[in-house]
C-alpha cells in the first residue's frame, strides 16, 4: 500500500522535477557565460559556485544583491530573465506537489494505510462492526467498555467523523468504506489473529448478506453476527453457518408473545439481558383479548404471526392494504384519526400496537387511542433513537426500540455466550419455574439489573479452583458461593447453569459437585463477580471457603507443620 503511494508520488513528480533541473541548468550556465568585471575592472566571469549561489537565492525570491562583485549589465539582463524563468518553474513544482497531496485517490491511500496500521496495533480480541448507525453506536460503546476492542466500517464519512469525536475507552479504528467488498474487510483485520468476529448491522439486508458470506469464506473460525429484516435473508444467512442472525422485529414479537403466555419468563429474560446496573424492568401483564395493530409492514407481520400463535385476535389497520398483502377484514386508514380507530372497534380492544415506520404517526395513534379508550395496553415502535424522550413521556407499557433490541442481543451473544443456552432452557420451562427463580434472584440484587458472567474452570479461568479439583478435592456449588471474607455469609449470586461437555445442568443444587473443565454461568449483584474471583484465584481464600482453616500456607510453614 505504502509502496504504491511512493510510486505514485515519484511518477507524478517527474515533470515538475525535470522543469526545475532544466531551469537551474539553463540559468546557472547562462550566468557563468555572461561577461562581467571584478573590483579592479578586469574582465572576469562568475564561477559555477557563485552562479549557483546567486540563482538559488534568486529562484526562491530571497535576493541578496550582487555578489561577489557588482554585476555587469549583461549579467543583470540574464539574472532578470532567470528570475522569471525560475519562479515559474518553482510555482509549477510546488503547485504540482500540493495538487498531489490534495488528490483524493492519494489521500485515500494514506487514510487506508493509517487505518490498517491502527488495526495491526490492536492487542485485545476485537470485533469488526460494519454499519455505524444507532445500533452500531450502542454496540461499539458497550464492546470497548468491556474486554473487547472494535473496528468500525461505514459507508458514511460523517458517521466516521462522529466516532472520532467520541470519548471511548479504547481507540477504535474507523474507515469510511464499502464493507461488502472483501478487500475492505481484510483491511479491517479479518485475518488478524485477534479478530473475534464480524458484526453486520446495515439496514440493508443484501449488504449484510455479502459481509456475512465474505467473512465466513475468508475466515471460517470467526463468529459472524448479522442483522436481517426479512425471513429470506435470515434463512439464507443461516444456510452458510452464520453464527447468529438477529431479526429485530421477530425477536421483539417473540418477546411480546412470551410476555403474553408467561410474564415471569419474560421478566427474567429482561433482567438477564439488561446491562448491569440498569434499573430493574417492571413485570408487564399484556391482557388477553382483542388487540388493534396499526401498520402491517415487516414489524406488523411478525407481530401478527406471533400473536396469532398465542391465540390473540387482532384487528389490523393499514394505510395501503393491497401493497402489503394484508389479510381480510383489514381496516383501511392510517390509524392516527379517531374515525379509523373507531372503525377498528377500539372500544372493544384491550391493547394497541402502533407499529408503523413513522415515529410521529405512532405517537399520534397512541394519544388518540388513549383518549378514545383509557386503560389500553399500549405498545409502540420507536424508529429513531433521537425520539427517546418523547416515547418515555408517552407513558407506554412497552416500547419496541430496534437499535437497543439488536444491541442487547449482540452483547449477550458476544460477552456471555452461555447465557444464550440458559435462555433457551428458560423458553421450555413453565412460568412458575421462572417466578420461583425470580423469587430467589430478587433478594440478591435489590433494584439493579443483575450482572451475568461466565467462569471457566480451567487453569486460566479459575487457577486455584482448578488446581484443587485436579488434586482430587471436591467442591460443591454451595461452597463456591460462600463469601471468601466470611464463609458463613452467602455471596449475592447464584449459579444458573453448568455446562459440562455437551451436558447442561440447569440451576444446580447447593450440593452439586463442580468438576474441572466445567463452564459456570452466574447471575448476581454487581461486584459479586469480583468477590468470587478471590475464591477462584487465591489458594488461601479457597482453602478458607472449603475448610474454614485460615493461616500461613507457604512451603516453609507446611514443612514446619510436618506436612512434607
Amino acid at each position: 500500500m505504502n509502496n504504491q503511494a511512493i510510486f505514485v508520488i515519484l511518477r507524478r513528480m517527474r515533470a515538475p522535477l525535470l522543469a526545475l533541473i532544466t531551469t537551474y541548468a539553463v540559468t546557472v550556465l547562462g550566468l557563468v557565460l555572461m561577461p562581467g568585471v571584478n573590483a579592479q575592472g578586469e574582465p572576469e566571469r562568475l564561477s559555477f559556485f557563485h552562479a549557483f549561489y546567486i540563482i538559488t537565492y534568486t529562484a526562491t525570491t530571497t535576493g541578496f544583491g550582487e555578489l561577489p562583485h557588482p554585476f555587469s549589465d549583461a549579467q543583470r539582463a540574464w539574472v532578470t530573465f532567470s528570475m522569471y524563468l525560475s519562479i515559474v518553474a518553482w510555482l509549477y513544482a510546488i503547485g504540482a506537489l500540493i495538487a498531489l497531496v490534495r488528490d483524493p485517490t492519494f489521500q485515500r491511500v494514506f487514510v487506508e494505510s493509517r487505518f490498517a496500521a491502527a488495526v495491526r496495533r490492536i492487542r485485545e480480541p476485537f470485533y469488526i462492526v460494519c454499519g455505524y448507525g444507532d445500533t452500531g453506536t450502542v454496540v461499539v460503546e458497550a464492546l470497548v467498555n468491556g474486554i473487547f476492542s472494535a473496528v468500525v466500517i461505514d459507508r458514511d464519512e460523517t458517521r466516521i467523523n462522529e466516532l472520532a469525536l467520541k470519548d471511548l475507552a479504547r481507540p477504535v479504528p474507523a474507515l469510511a468504506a464499502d464493507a461488502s467488498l472483501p478487500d475492505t474487510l481484510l483491511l479491517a483485520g479479518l485475518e488478524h489473529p485477534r479478530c473475534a468476529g464480524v458484526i453486520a448491522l446495515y439496514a440493508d439486508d443484501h449488504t449484510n448478506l455479502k459481509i456475512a458470506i465474505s467473512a465466513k469464506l475468508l475466515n471460517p473460525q470467526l463468529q459472524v453476527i448479522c442483522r436481517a429484516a426479512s425471513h429470506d435473508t435470515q434463512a439464507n444467512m443461516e444456510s452458510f453457518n452464520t453464527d447468529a442472525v438477529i431479526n429485530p422485529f421477530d425477536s421483539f414479537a417473540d418477546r411480546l408473545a412470551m410476555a403474553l403466555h408467561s410474564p415471569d419468563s419474560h421478566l427474567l429474560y429482561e433482567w438477564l439481558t439488561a446491562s448491569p446496573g440498569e434499573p430493574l424492568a417492571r413485570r408487564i401483564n399484556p391482557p388477553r383479548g382483542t388487540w388493534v395493530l396499526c401498520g402491517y409492514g415487516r414489524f406488523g407481520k411478525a407481530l401478527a404471526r406471533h400473536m396469532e400463535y398465542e391465540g390473540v385476535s387482532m384487528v389490523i389497520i393499514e394505510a395501503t392494504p393491497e401493497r402489503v398483502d394484508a389479510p381480510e377484514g383489514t381496516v383501511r386508514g392510517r390509524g392516527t384519526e379517531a374515525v379509523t380507530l373507531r372503525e377498528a372497534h377500539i372500544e372493544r380492544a384491550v391493547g394497541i400496537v402502533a407499529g408503523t415506520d413513522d415515529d410521529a404517526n405512532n405517537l399520534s395513534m397512541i394519544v388518540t387511542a388513549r383518549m378514545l379508550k383509557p386503560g389500553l395496553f399500549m405498545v409502540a415502535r420507536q424508529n429513531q433513537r433521537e425520539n427517546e424522550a418523547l416515547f418515555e413521556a408517552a407513558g407506554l407499557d412497552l416500547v419496541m426500540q430496534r437499535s437497543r433490541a439488536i444491541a442487547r442481543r449482540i452483547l449477550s451473544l458476544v460477552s456471555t455466550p452461555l447465557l444464550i443456552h440458559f435462555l433457551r432452557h428458560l423458553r421450555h420451562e413453565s412460568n412458575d419455574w421462572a417466578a420461583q427463580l425470580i423469587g430467589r434472584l430478587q433478594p440478591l440484587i435489590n433494584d439493579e439489573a443483575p450482572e451475568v458472567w461466565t467462569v471457566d474452570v480451567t487453569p486460566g479461568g479459575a487457577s486455584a479452583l482448578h488446581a484443587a479439583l485436579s488434586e482430587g478435592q471436591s467442591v460443591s456449588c454451595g461452597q463456591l458461593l460462600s463469601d471468601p471474607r466470611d464463609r458463613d455469609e452467602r455471596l449475592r449470586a447464584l449459579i444458573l447453569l453448568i455446562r459440562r461437555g455437551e451436558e447442561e445442568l440447569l440451576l444446580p443444587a447447593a450440593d452439586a459437585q463442580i468438576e474441572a473443565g466445567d463452564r459456570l454461568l452466574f447471575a448476581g449483584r454487581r461486584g459479586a463477580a469480583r468477590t468470587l474471583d478471590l475464591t477462584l484465584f487465591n489458594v488461601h481464600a479457597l482453602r478458607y471457603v472449603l475448610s474454614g482453616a485460615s493461616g500461613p500456607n507457604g512451603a516453609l510453614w507446611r514443612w514446619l507443620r510436618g506436612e512434607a
Partner: protein
Amino acid sequence: MNIEKVIFSFFIVLALTLNFGFYLGEIHNPEHHNVYELFATIIVNLIATVLKFGERTQMGAVLLATSLVADLGLIAAALVWAYAVYVAGTGLTGSVTAVIVSLAGGALLANAVSVVLLVVEISLLRR
C-alpha cells in the same frame, strides 16, 4: 519506435559519455578536466535520474539505484571542487584534482552499469 524510450536512452547514454569525457586525462592535472563538462554531466545525470522515477519493474529499480549512485559521486566531486577553491582557498592542486576525478570515475562506473542494463533489457525485449 517509442519516443519516450528514445529520450530515456538518450539521457542515459549522454550521462555516460559526458562523464567519460570529464574523466579522460591525467588524474592530477586540472588542465585536463573541464568545469563545464562536470556541470553538464551533473545536469544530465539528474535528468536521467528523474526519468527513471516511478518505474515499477525490477530493471527500473536497479537503473534508478545506479543513477542515484552516479549523482552522489558527481555531486561529491562538485562539492570538493567548490570547497577547495572557495572555502579552503588551496585552489586546484594535483591532489584535489585527483580526488575530484576519482569521484567522477566512480560515477562513471555506475553510469556504465546503467548502460549495460539498458542494453540487456533491450536485447531481452527483442526476443
